[in-house]
């Protein structure tokens, strides 16, 4: 059976691996941006397409190379019932649940009704108790989802969710449900075949999320007792059986104490399926292929046994300390390889460029160990030594999570990252300050060292951001090194705090006798690796070029992306904090707000326009 994977990146590579092992020829599809990507090179044959969302194109690709089956991966068209139907209509095998099952679960509002009738516990919905979550009915992966704490913010959140949902799913239906504080996100992997069998493969806990997207997943869940596990898996199997589910599916629940509530059912292979594979020793893609070929499930419920503990982390090109802003660039070094007890699923190799075009997930790293503690320790160690240079990642933040006492105690709830800010920027001040000085590393002239003076008078200064936070440094050259201070306020007149005597070499920085090896990529902005941490830095210009310009000053884009909405026009009065422009970048929505009250004197962008980072969007004259 020749299998075309209608997807990209790590999941395409992962499906190809199993398909090839089973002896099935493989077909990749690729867009121009992915011409050189790993997944394009990992199949027996690859077909160029315009978009991973273009159904006709993908079917045409399948016909051109005489593919027999289509695996949709996750995301893109994986939960599109029309596409599943079209695949079947074209006489191809669809490696996924039936279009009816997909349709039944696709719209969350309807799915909830079905689940309720299958006897699955439900969260009461209603908009009078806050906080609430606004969710896209057609949504998934956190897209279109918004937490709202105050009634007055609800309208804006609904509007934004609708917009995001419309752009992501082509359906702007949203619904509101109660937001459970301090709850866990636990899901049950189910599998059905065409012979009426349905089994579960235990649960996965995916509570550690940022922006409602999972970053750490594990199985078993530290918050689920054997008794609760029995009830949850039974409910999940019951729902799957109720709709005659075929293939891999996931029933998601919120768990608070020993209660659990239905969230939604995902009718696809989940990103985090490897943790289930690790503890059960089963290849879920192999199961998918066999079920799609009409074979019965390879194992009965009794034969499915979990051993040990598995944890997966998702490595993203993003800066956790800077609001998880996606980071783009060239992966100069990408030393993230599989080891005996470590599985790595990735679609990247060193030298690849991380662009704003697609999801910024670089890799999934999965460890399987006898106990949770061992798995966490092993994975943290692996991450710390993994070499990634060229882009900022959440690697260090993930390692910090895996070593953090609450995590190790199993105290994982969906607000974990909000309540454990220390893991976002696991960086000490002396490191931060030392890094700032690195920005002067290349300033030694041919005849005099950087900042040399024969009359000591005025220090040099440097304003920069390190790992997202602003730092102003003042420094003077002494014979023994650079005397460095940090400054609050005006770089020359502000209050200064001593950092110490700093000595620099091209490969190290020494602060008062503490020597740290460093690598730096980039000049005015780039990333620096020190003490195993990789941090973004950006040297800010000494002069604010826009400060006095009649036009051109104003709020700027934080990242490259596409303008999706312009909310103001010339002449509008705006107040501080008001949303001016909405930007979509790396599949995330970013709002750009007014810094102060004022009048809009010019609008520099329009909806649909692609913009660079730091581009001025609107000029505002302050009032």
């Amino acid at each position: 059976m020749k299998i075309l994977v209608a997807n990209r990146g790590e999941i395409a590579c992962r499906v190809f691996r199993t398909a090839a092992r089973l002896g099935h020829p493989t077909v990749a599809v690729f867009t121009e941006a992915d011409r050189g990507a790993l997944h394009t090179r990992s199949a027996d044959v690859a077909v160029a397409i315009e978009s991973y969302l273009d159904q006709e194109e993908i079917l045409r690709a399948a016909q051109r190379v005489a593919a027999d089956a289509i695996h949709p991966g996750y995301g893109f068209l994986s939960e599109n019932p029309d596409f599943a139907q079209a695949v079947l209509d074209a006489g191809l095998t669809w490696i996924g649940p039936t279009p009816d099952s997909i349709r039944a679960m696709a719209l969350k509002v309807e799915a909830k009704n079905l689940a309720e009738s299958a006897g699955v516990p439900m969260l009461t919905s209603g908009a009078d108790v806050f906080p609430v979550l606004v969710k896209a009915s057609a949504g998934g992966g956190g897209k279109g989802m918004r937490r709202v704490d105050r009634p007055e913010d609800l309208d804006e959140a609904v509007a934004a969710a609708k917009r995001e949902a419309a752009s992501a799913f082509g359906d702007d239906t949203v619904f509101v449900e109660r937001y459970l504080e301090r709850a866990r996100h636990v899901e049950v992997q189910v599998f059905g075949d065409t012979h009426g069998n349905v089994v579960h493969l235990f649960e996965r806990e995916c509570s550690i999320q940022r922006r409602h997207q999972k970053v750490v997943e594990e199985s078993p869940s530290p918050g689920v007792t054997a008794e609760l596990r029995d009830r949850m898996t039974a409910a999940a199997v019951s729902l799957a059986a109720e709709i005659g589910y075929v293939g891999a599916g996931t029933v998601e629940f919120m768990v608070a104490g020993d209660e659990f509530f239905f969230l939604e059912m995902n009718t696809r292979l989940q990103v985090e399926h490897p943790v289930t594979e690790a503890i059960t020793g089963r290849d879920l893609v192999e199961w998918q292929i066999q079920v799609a070929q009409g074979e019965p499930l390879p194992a009965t419920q009794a034969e499915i046994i979990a051993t040990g503990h598995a944890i997966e982390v998702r490595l993203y090109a993003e800066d956790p300390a800077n609001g998880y802003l996606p980071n783009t660039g060239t992966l100069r070094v990408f030393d993230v390889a599989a080891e005996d007890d470590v599985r790595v699923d990735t679609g990247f190799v060193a030298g690849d460029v991380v662009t704003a075009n697609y999801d910024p997930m670089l890799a999934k790293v999965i460890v399987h160990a006898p106990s949770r503690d061992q798995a966490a320790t092993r994975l943290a160690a692996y991450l710390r030594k993994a070499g990634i240079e060229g882009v900022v990642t959440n690697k260090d933040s993930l390692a910090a999570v895996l070593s953090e006492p609450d995590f190790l105690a199993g105290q994982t709830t969906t607000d974990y990252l909000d309540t454990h800010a220390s893991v976002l920027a696991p960086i000490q001040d002396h490191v931060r300050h030392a890094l700032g000085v690195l920005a002067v590393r290349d300033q030694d002239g041919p005849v005099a060292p950087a900042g040399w003076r024969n009359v000591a008078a005025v220090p040099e200064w440097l304003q920069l951001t390190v790992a997202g936070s602003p730092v102003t440094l003042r420094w003077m050259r002494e014979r023994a090194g650079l005397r460095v201070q940090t400054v609050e306020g005006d770089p020359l007149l502000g209050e200064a705090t001593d950092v110490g005597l700093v000595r620099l070499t091209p490969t190290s920085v020494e602060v008062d006798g503490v020597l740290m090896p460093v690598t730096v990529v980039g000049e005015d902005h780039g990333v620096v690796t020190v003490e195993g941490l990789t941090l973004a830095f950006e040297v800010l210009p000494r002069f604010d070029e826009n400060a006095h310009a009649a036009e051109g000053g104003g709020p700027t884009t934080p990242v490259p992306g596409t303008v999706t909405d312009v909310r103001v026009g010339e002449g509008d009065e705006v107040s501080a904090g008001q949303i001016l422009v909405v930007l979509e970048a790396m599949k995330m929505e970013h709002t750009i707000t007014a810094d102060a009250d004022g009048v809009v004197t010019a609008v520099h962008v329009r909806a649909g326009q692609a913009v660079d980072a730091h581009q001025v969007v609107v000029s505002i004259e302050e009032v």
Partner: protein
Amino acid sequence: MIDPGSEQFTANRDAMLTALHEIQQLQAKVAAGGGSGDPEKNARTIARHRKRGKLLPRERIAYLLDGGSPFLELSPLAGWGTQDPLGAGVVTGIGTISGTECVIVANDPTVKGGAQGPSSVRKGLRAMDIARQNRLPLISLTESAGADLPQQAEIFVPGGASFKNLTQLSAAGIPTVTMVFGSSTAGGAYVPGMSDYVVLQKEAAKVYLGGPPLVKMAIDEDADEEELGGAEMHARISGLGDYLAQDEPDALRIGREIVQHLRWRKQGPGPDRSPVAPRFDPDELLGIASADVRVPFDVHDVLARVLDDSAFEEFKPLYGTTLVTGWGHISGYPVGILGNNGILFSEESHKGAQFIQMCNRMDVPIIFVQNITGFMVGTRYEQGGIIKDGAKLINAVSNSTVPHITLMVGASYGAGNYGMSGRAYDPRFVFTWPNHRIAVMGPKQLAGVLTIVAKQKAGDAFDETAFAPIRDAFEKQVEDQSTALFATGRLWDDGIIDPRDTRTVLGMALSAAHSGPVEGTSAFGIWRM
């Protein structure tokens, strides 16, 4: 060989560090601003200045320079020992702006309102000389009350040269850029008036020939200061202002942009190899230089701590040994070196003259390392033609056209100062070490000569005991007037430097010299044979 443990080394080092400490204290006083001897009064002056949102001159320079650029401040202690304020109320120096080495001249408005006394005029003119000789763009940061009126007689006539110099720089193709942050009136108005580029700070720059009171007196007009010479008026009406800056940093930002667009190219060949640090520790220079200039030390030991890789290719090492000549590199720049290891005889004069001609033939700049008590005297030497031989050396030095840089590491007495390219021989730069002494001859010798002359005049009536205090006072006066501080206060040099910085300072000076063409000559005066 140098023995850092020796008593003499330690004593020299202690004396040098003490002298450096005094110099640093003086420099710190200048850098703090205010200009008076009373720290509280200075603090009030500076607070008033800051309250108006103004920066100190060195802060303006810090904004102007490239990040990490070195800054070689020139004549920082000008005015020492004179009635002028220490530092002369103006900051001058060489630094890199938008990748271009420039001479910067910045008034210090916290010192007598930036008013110009005789030392200020000399310091400013010297900076212009450096700009012209080395072909460096001149950047003026102007805010000055004008002439220091009580001293007008001392400055009116010589001060006029600064405006001539500005336009001559321009005529020579050397750009002049002026940023005005405050008052620049009467004669001072010609600083922007004669500059190629003028940046005026809004609501701060005042540029007019005559202020409101003078206008009232002259033509009975009630003039408004802004209308008379404000930045907006000059930017919009008179056209004197090319750029209108919103505030000080904005003016400095514009200044950087102007230098950027000059697309300035240096004309010298530049370094011909990569810099290599000396093999010997420059820190040892502190103990090598004699605290008492009468105690000789070997110039080879100095060169070993200044030259790249401590590599010195000596020329004629066995002939005329008290003048050391040879080639080496400083920060990658090829240089010829003449250094003193004692008094100059006929052989040394011949050797020096030949060596200078060769440097001119090869277009190589020359470093003169002065530690010289003079030419040899005495019947034998006069009969041997020491005058005409010395004349050959002075002929060579005077007519040589490659850049000369003079470093004073000890004594500079008598005609030795001339033969070794003293200030009057127009070297591009003169830098001194703190132990430097300069005079027509050593104080003891001079006092001794005075005594002998007095004895000859008085004959038998000479009272040795009665003359002793006169002799001692004279010796002390000469001693006081020959110190490095006395010399630098009078602009006889471009600044006292820390010996450990010698290689850096010479490197910056060489780099500056290479901004213009580096070309030798074969046209010398008649060689007296």
